[in-house]
């Protein structure tokens, strides 16, 4: 499997002006001999939403922590907002807003107090603090809750506090490390909408890590798939989907299929690949969805193999991930 990482893509981000907002070159992070991030390079343009997609432990958080000055880089270089994070970490910190994976707002303080304290930490002048915080609270729909203690807010509202907190010093680049992990579906959608709205209002470059395919698909202009510390694919979501052989995915579960069933399925016209998953579940990639489905059901009838469940869908980022890494995100 060849990764979709083209030279021009690295040199010229999808959006943006003359210089990239983030430039990562051959970055490596090792922990006592273990390589968590292995020779990764990419660029993010101004105003671009860039997704780092991968399972837990793939190295996404390590990568984002190096770019946000939280951990030192073993080798390579990361330039954020024009500042090399190893040479001028303070410059980089002033240019970026960061929402770490863990909840970093103080639960015992009010929403306003949390934002006010971070405004002071970032050196926002006294005269500007209140108007900036009021505007941010308006943007994240928390004006009504400004004096409420954070511990009294729902998970989704707390995430919105975090988003506002990360923007209190008006950064040009925004890092979000798994911003919707642990949220219910309604809160996730609300956070997505918030991110899109704020990004458009402020023309931010956004780097987001996630292990949710739908999140990456919906939010990101480009996606980098990371697995075992390596960059295995980097492109626009649509291009990544097109790069997977077969435009349709058929997921089918048979009851007691014979030993050579994979070979039988592969012989159906139009089938590009067959993966045998657990409990009689098979995943077929095909260019001819309806014809392949009909042929497969005919085959099962002829061979007296009972079909238990069947679903047909277009290629998703899940399929892209499986294609490039050889396994599903949840493996």
């Amino acid at each position, binding site marked *: 499997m060849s990764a979709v990482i083209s030279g021009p893509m690295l040199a010229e981000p999808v959006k943006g002006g003359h210089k990239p907002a983030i430039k990562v070159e051959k970055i490596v992070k090792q922990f006592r001999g273990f390589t968590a991030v292995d020779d990764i390079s990419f660029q993010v343009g101004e105003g671009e939403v860039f997704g780092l997609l991968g399972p837990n432990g793939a190295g996404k958080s390590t990568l984002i*922590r190096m770019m*946000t*000055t*939280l*951990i*030192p880089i073993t080798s390579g270089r990361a330039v954020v907002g024009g500042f090399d994070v190893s040479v001028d970490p*303070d410059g980089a*910190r*002033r240019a*970026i807003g*960061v929402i*770490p*994976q*863990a*909840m*970093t*707002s*103080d639960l*015992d*303080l009010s929403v306003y*107090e949390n934002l006010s*304290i*971070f405004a*002071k*930490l*970032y*050196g926002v002048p006294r005269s500007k603090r209140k108007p900036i915080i009021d505007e941010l609270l308006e943007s994240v729909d928390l004006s009504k809750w400004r004096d409420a203690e954070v511990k009294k807010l729902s998970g989704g509202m707390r995430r919105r506090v975090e988003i506002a*907190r990360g923007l209190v010093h008006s950064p040009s680049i925004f890092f979000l490390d798994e911003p919707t992990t642990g949220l219910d579906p309604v809160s996730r959608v609300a956070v997505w909408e918030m991110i899109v709205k704020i990004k458009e209002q402020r023309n931010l470059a956004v780097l987001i890590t996630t292990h949710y395919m739908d999140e990456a698909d919906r939010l990101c202009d480009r996606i980098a798939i990371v697995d075992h510390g390596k960059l295995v694919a980097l492109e626009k979501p649509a291009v990544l989907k097109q790069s997977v052989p077969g435009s349709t995915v058929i997921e089918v579960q048979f009851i007691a299929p014979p030993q050579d069933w994979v070979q039988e399925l592969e012989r159906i016209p139009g089938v590009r690949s067959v993966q045998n998953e657990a409990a009689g579940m098979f995943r077929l990639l095909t260019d001819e969805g309806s014809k392949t489905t009909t042929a497969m059901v005919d085959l099962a009838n002829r061979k007296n193999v009972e079909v238990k469940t069947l679903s047909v869908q277009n290629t998703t980022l899940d399929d892209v991930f499986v294609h490039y890494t050889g396994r599903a995100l949840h493996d």
Partner: protein
Amino acid sequence: MTRVFAIAERELLKFFRSPALMITSMLLPLAQLLILGNAFGGRVQHTTLAVVDQDHGPQALRVIEMLRAVHVNANTFNPVMYDDQQTAVEDVRNGRVQGALVIPANFSRKVYAQTRPHIGLIVDNTDGFISSTYEGEMQALADALNAPDIEQRMAQKIAVSTVELYPYIEYMKYLLPGSITLAIFVSVMIGGGIVYIDDKARGIHEGYLVTPITGPELILGLNLAGAVKAMASGLVITTIGMLLSGIVIFNPFRIFWLLLLIVLTASAFICMTSFMMARVDDPMIPRAIFGVLNTLLFFPSGAIYPVGAFPTWLRVVAAVDPFTYAVHGFRAMLLKEAGFAAIWPDVTFLAVFTILTWTGTALLFKRTL
């Protein structure tokens, strides 16, 4: 300094909004003062002394009358007559009585004949405090019995006259400096480096580390908040303790020196704990350490027992223990009406200790994850 004050503000907002935390840190040391002050400070009273009179003579009667006089006045013990020595000794062993006095047969005869008369005192020496009290009482009783009926005009024995510089100091007053020091230390345990360990455990510190705050600024902010909490605690217990002990200070200089000692003690303690916790990540470690550390620092300080009575190695511990200097300084200000001349070594030690431990923390502190 805005960033330093922002870190301190966060901590103090939380502290002053938590009445339970404030009460715990300020009032528990006060309870300790009351309990220890009364538990250690009292005289032995209401004990029972077995008296075995095997003489039944006039001199034995004189001894028994003197014992009854002690009972009526100081009430150190209540003398109870026993018929035989064996039962009395058995009752001392099983704790029914705290001591036994045996007046042997022919005691009166020996007194009159001046042939070395003896009274036997049997004590439970597993309880050193009561046994030494009994020995003291009986020695006083023997001195009274030995006193000549008519004093010589020219005393031939050397006598020592003691002049007490200060009014009688109850044990609770003696303990007050230690209790103030302990209150400050207890408050320190909910601030400084320990707060940062909790922040690390919850991941909150990542939020700070992505801001432009420097390591020394972060430490200074945490220590400032911790010191303010400890100072508040020290001030409260000093005020209440002075009211309870009847100590009044009108001299504005002494009030200033007292406040300076509170500030320096709080600063020294918070910097010490932050230094100790600079590389700790596990929030269970401070909980495991501080219960013991409390004892390790408090008892060698002279707060309860004088440093002069310690073995050499323990005196060395006392010499590097910041508690020692805090207790000494508070004692000089509260009990001795002393001025700066009495506390400058304490002030100097605490200030240097603060600077050294803060610098050590700044050097050890990792500003990355």
